[in-house]
């Protein structure tokens, strides 16, 4: 699935990023615990999270995730946005709650991090 499709499914607004259709999303993960993201995600995952601080972007950069989507209509701070721009991490904002966002993506065929090899 590409990021533009995921954006549509999540009814999300794009905060940082362009040409989303060129970004491949191989899996997704929903988490508010960044250590879990660092431990369990693989490269090119989409992260859904309720946290909006800059460390989420740092985590995204380190775990090499494809994009971050904030759930339940949360908006990131200016600091988070500028760090994301600097590091080329796309940011989306979805009005959906975490469970529903994850559920819709899963129903559309996106796999979880434990279901994808490497």
């Amino acid at each position, binding site marked *: 699935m590409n990021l533009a499709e995921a954006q549509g499914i999540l009814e999300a607004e794009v905060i940082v990023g362009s040409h989303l259709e060129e970004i491949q999303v191989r899996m997704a993960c929903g988490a*508010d*615990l*960044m*250590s*879990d*993201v*660092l*431990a369990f995600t693989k*490269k090119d995952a989409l992260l859904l*999270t309720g*946290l909006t*601080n*800059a*460390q*989420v972007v*740092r*985590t995204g*950069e*380190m*775990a*090499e995730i494809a994009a971050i989507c904030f759930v339940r209509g949360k908006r990131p701070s200016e*600091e988070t946005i500028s760090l994301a721009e600097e*590091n080329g991490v796309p940011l989306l904002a979805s009005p959906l709650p975490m469970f529903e966002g994850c559920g819709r993506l899963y129903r559309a065929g996106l796999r979880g991090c434990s279901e994808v*090899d*490497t």
Partner: protein
Amino acid sequence: MKADPRITKTQEMVYEMRVGDVMSREVITVKADDLMSSLRELLRRNRISGVPVLDEDRLAGLISLEDFIKWLADREADCTIGERMTGNLVTLDEDDPLVLAIGKFESTGLGRFPVTDSRQGRLVGILTKGDVIEGLLKKLEIDYHQEEIHHYRPSDFFRHIEAESTTLVFQYDVKGKDIKQAGSSASRLKRTLKRLGMRPDVVRRVGIASYEAEMNLVIFTEGGKVRATVQPGRVFVEVEDSGPGIPDIEKALQPGYSTAPDWVRELGFGAGMGLVNIRKCSDTFDIYSEPGKGTLLRASFFASEEEDETGRPGARAGSGRGVGSRAPR
């Protein structure tokens, strides 16, 4: 033209480059005693608008499409090219700088110049404005490419070093409690390793481990150092601080065990997974701590020799995992 610093590269090039560098060497010529009527097919077939005229081996003149049209318009009987050509020739020497040729294009309004050999005056090529533009573009492309190789490709860095063994050391100073900067050292280390051409899976593991370690320094200590020792295919990371130290390391290594304050948990950290993660990402892992003195964490990361098709490292070297209360100095 307004002075624009951006065109200095082209200016430099037109002084450096010679006519011989950009001219077309395969010149179609006609003989002075060829007939005017033969020109039509020649010009059409080769899609050219002018041809140098040779008399024996000597350059005698130039016959252009314009001359041909004029001859057609005059409706005169067929004659030799020698009779209708432009004999008063402006030529260029192949050693002339390009800037001189550009000046001649401007001052004469001509579209092409025959180019002669500097010693014997023999015809060696022809120069059109198109040749000049193409030559400049090619040179720009080559220069750009070389610049890229020399300046922007440090990924070959290790290959360019001639030595029995090579070690690079990078050190990052981490401030305690400075949550805004937290992760910036890991980020800079990660970028540096990428540029050095370190294998992507190693870069990712080093990034995650050093980020967790950096978070620990920010959260629990007054600051410390992250030191990465890099050799071809391997990275050793040492993270050192001077307090407060970990009273019970075995406990600290249990997943979920945490002593982090609430403000850390709000950031998505402090859930007792940091050291666990570092250990998971690394090939060897050691930690030594003394309460009141400080903590030293060492982790190493190897690019495995073999690799399956997916780019995932095969069996990790993973052996030495040490835990201790005293740092071996």
